[in-house]
């Protein structure tokens, strides 16, 4: 399995999707910086802290920009084996389809968590720039580290909700369907981000869980978790079932 994950990572060497995905997830810190500068000029008396910035950034990270980036990389990881016709080279080695799939999901998890960490670090850096120019209250590494586990947890939960898109990528063997799906999902997330029903919608439930807001929606945490795990399990199972039985044409 270690070999499989190593090879999955090696496959990404020189791949344009790496700088594209990093640029994509760094848009969140950039948006936070723009928002902070705008707030500074519009309401100079308004005082906000590094924690406030991280708190706002979770919404962008989990519901908007990062989610679309993660759907794109999930689609890329799985569909490229079809578009580059590499499965017919790899499978007869032999590599078990189950192990190959598992290796890909592990790499996806690793990549998503890494990108969430990049976002977390990016926010710390842009807040440092803001702090140097305008002064940001409570700007310290210790505060940033307090937010680190939330970004890790957020990454894991977001990974769980990508499995249906992986299935779509496997079925359509491309980016288009998953990306259209992700746009729909993001629209839904934006609509439900402030609604109690958001606790029942897997892609906003992850956000509520990380923010610790589930209880305030009136729904039990176990229900939100159950919905996320159910969605994830269905996505994994359908992907596995399809890939395991698929004839390569």
């Amino acid at each position, binding site marked *: 399995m270690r070999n499989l994950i190593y090879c999955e990572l*090696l*496959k990404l060497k020189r*791949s344009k999707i790496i700088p594209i995905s990093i640029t994509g997830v760094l848009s969140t810190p950039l948006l936070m910086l723009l928002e902070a500068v705008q707030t500074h000029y519009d309401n100079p008396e308004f005082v906000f802290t590094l924690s406030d910035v991280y708190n706002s950034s979770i919404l962008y990270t989990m519901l908007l920009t990062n989610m679309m980036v993660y759907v794109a990389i999930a689609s890329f990881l799985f569909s490229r084996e079809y578009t*580059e*016709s590499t*499965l*017919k*080279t790899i499978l*007869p*080695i032999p590599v078990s389809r189950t192990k190959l799939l598992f290796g890909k999901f592990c790499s996806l998890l690793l990549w998503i968590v890494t990108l969430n960490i990049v976002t977390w670090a990016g926010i710390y850096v842009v807040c440092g720039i803001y702090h140097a120019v305008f002064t940001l209250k409570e700007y310290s590494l210790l505060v940033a580290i307090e937010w680190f586990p939330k970004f890790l947890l957020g990454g894991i939960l977001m990974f769980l909700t990508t499995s249906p898109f992986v299935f779509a990528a496997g079925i359509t063997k491309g980016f288009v369907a998953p990306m259209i799906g992700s746009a729909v999902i993001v629209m839904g997330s934006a609509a439900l981000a402030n609604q109690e029903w958001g606790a029942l919608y897997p892609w906003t439930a992850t956000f509520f869980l990380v923010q610790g807001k589930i209880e305030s929606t009136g729904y039990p945490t176990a229900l939100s978790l159950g919905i996320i795990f159910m969605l994830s399990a269905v996505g994994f199972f359908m992907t596995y079932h399809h890939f395991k039985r698929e004839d390569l044409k």
Partner: protein
Amino acid sequence: MEFIIETNNLTKRYGTVTVVDKVSLHVPKGKIYGLLGRNGAGKTTAMKMMLKLTFPTDGTVRLFGKDYKDNETAIYNKIGSIIETPGFYGNLTGYENLYILARLRGQLCKNAVLNALEIVGLHEEKRKIFADYSLGMKQRLGIAAALMHDPELLILDEPINGLDPIGISEIRSFLSKLSHDNGITIFISSHVLNEIEQIADIIGVMHKGRLIEEFDIAEPHKRNRKYIQFDLSDGHAAAEILENHYQITDFTVHDNTLKIYDFSHSIGDINRDFALNGLLVTKINTSEENLEEYFTKLIGGGGIA
């Protein structure tokens, strides 16, 4: 005889379309088996089923004397393959692509990768990105990937596609050498008769999903079929005379041209009988039917395209 590949009634259907229809072929150990057929004959699908890329609807595949589902790792570690145009990662170099395959196989010796690249003449291009390779180079890298782990069986689907004439000649010589010097069994498909004819020991012919002929190329009567040709006034009457008077059945009649492949009777006797039965013979000659003509006749149409 020990068979490295043996299929029994191998069948693949997509919906109502039968792509491979009850194919039972036999590839003996140490031989080069050429699978010949027109585009769409079912060669690639048959090979994909042997490599578990596609699942059979019916029938069995035995590799190295065992069912191909038993002990897959041991069986497939002894096989190198190319199916159609080889697929590699465009963002990686030739070396990195082969290195990934070696890692996945558990073959950690870097020399194996370099040796394979050297064999196919790509050692000086090892740092070139695969996306920048020419079609011929891609094909060579596919051959290197197939050979890298010293396989006992090579399954090669149209491996010379995209190669220039010199490259084709080199690969042909190399495959012959591999088989004859190292005892590697090679199962190779092509729609180009000349390529198969020059290296294969055994030829299988597929047409519309079915294996319609399987024979040893050394059999002279198959390779070059000699015949006596009569041009006469009534071909069908002549056919009756052959069957009734001489019990000859190995002949063909087309219009008023009769071709007899059975040399067990004297041409003079047959000619005299035709004349005594009122047939006017305008031409007699002996001729040879080459392999290409034979296959054209076998699979119909205007040749193997």
